[in-house]
């Protein structure tokens, strides 16, 4: 045995494999570069900030009020204030409505069409005591309150919602993979169409995993199997979730070509991909 002997043990990849893989690669779209992701991220963040920033809220509040309330007569004194908190409900004609009124014309001056009877939203029980920011005017009594209220949710509630959201996603993923498991275990026949539908669904949902796991909930004690490695090693976690998309792509391709063996192989790959991630990032 020598170098030459060892080199001679090499083999060319099978032609059908090389062709199949190339065809599969041709179909895959490249992920956006980091710069594009940053730009998108800043755009989303900027839009979110604009929505929750105090000046924007004031503008939105003013818009909604003017859209739901008829303009006051010229002779009537209109309170002028930039701060909606200083506008008392009694200063407005008819008082400040908590819900769009159906008996008043809209801005256009035309009579409002009779709207379906809408019940005002029932007061929600407060899940957690919410801190009151002195500088932020209260909007709880306005129609914009649901938007403005979002950022004031406590970390505990945010964490709870995040956990619920990601657990919901994983329940759906589990639902999608169940028939695939049955196929690979031989407990149900290999249905290529069903396998392809599952693959397509996984292709759509797998990229959401890093998104729903983005919020670090370690500080809050919640009933979750997520391990802290998810947030300690985000790049590896992201890479593992991308593996699922790739595995789903392979299943999509295999099931589309009607190759039952390749489909089973692709299903096993999905199973492996899930397990590889769970081994590191989920409590047993």
């Amino acid at each position, binding site marked *: *045995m020598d170098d030459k002997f060892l080199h001679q*043990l090499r083999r060319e990849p099978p032609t059908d494999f090389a062709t199949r893989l190339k065809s599969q690669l*041709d179909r895959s779209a490249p992920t956006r570069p980091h710069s594009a992701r940053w730009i998108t991220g800043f755009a989303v963040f900027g839009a979110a900030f604009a929505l929750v920033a105090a000046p924007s809220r004031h503008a939105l509040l003013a818009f909604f009020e003017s859209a739901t309330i008829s303009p006051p007569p010229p002779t009537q004194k209109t309170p002028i204030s930039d701060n909606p908190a200083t506008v008392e409900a009694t200063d407005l004609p008819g008082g400040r409505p908590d819900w769009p009124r159906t008996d008043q014309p809209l801005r256009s001056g035309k009579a409002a069409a009779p709207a379906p009877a809408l019940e005002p939203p029932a007061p929600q029980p407060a899940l957690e005591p919410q801190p009151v920011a002195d500088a932020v005017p209260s909007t709880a009594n306005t129609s914009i309150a649901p938007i403005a209220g979002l950022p004031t949710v406590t970390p505990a509630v945010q964490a709870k919602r995040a956990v619920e959201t990601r657990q919901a996603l994983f329940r759906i993923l589990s639902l999608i993979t169940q028939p695939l498991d049955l196929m690979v275990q031989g407990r149900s026949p290999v249905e290529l169409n069903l396998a392809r539908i599952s693959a397509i669904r996984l292709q759509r949902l797998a990229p959401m995993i890093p998104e729903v796991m983005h919020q670090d909930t370690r500080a809050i004690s919640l009933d979750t199997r997520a391990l802290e490695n998810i947030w300690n090693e985000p790049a590896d976690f992201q890479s593992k979730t991308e593996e699922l998309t*790739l595995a789903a792509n*392979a299943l999509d391709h295999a099931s589309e070509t009607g190759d039952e063996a390749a489909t089973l192989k692709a299903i096993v790959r999905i199973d492996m991909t899930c397990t590889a991630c769970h081994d590191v990032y989920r409590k047993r």
Partner: protein
Amino acid sequence: MQGLEGSTPELDWNAVYGNQLPRIYNYFRFRVGPAHDVEELTARTFEKAWRARAQYRCNLAGFSTWLFAIARNVVKDHLRSEAHRIRAAALSDMSDSPTPEDGAMQSSDMARLLTLTAQLPERHKELIALKYGAELNNRMIARITGLSESNVGTTLQRIVISLRAQW
């Protein structure tokens, strides 16, 4: 290959595929053995690289290093996953008969080599696969593994001597 040529002007991705596929494929053959694993791991490596190709900005030599870094991670994940044993069992149940290459390998020099290298440390298996599977030179292997070039050469020499003694 659709849309690839424009993403990185320095690289002809079709040529990259043609050039790197045999290297990656043989790297896995030397590293993990059975044919069905080899194809899957090769496919996984290229899929990952292809998805990230828009982010790649370097020359061909750098690309090879980058691609093998992906391949090494793929192997690491493969070996770490407990499921790969289950998977192997499931696949053996699935196929009615071994592939021609599987059959040939059982009685081939390659199978014998894999039996011998199975006893080696992972780092040594890695060097064998990179040198004789991927046909990389010592400098490239040093860049990929983080070892010095002379260390790579010396270690490989010792491994080959050891294998020859057991052959």
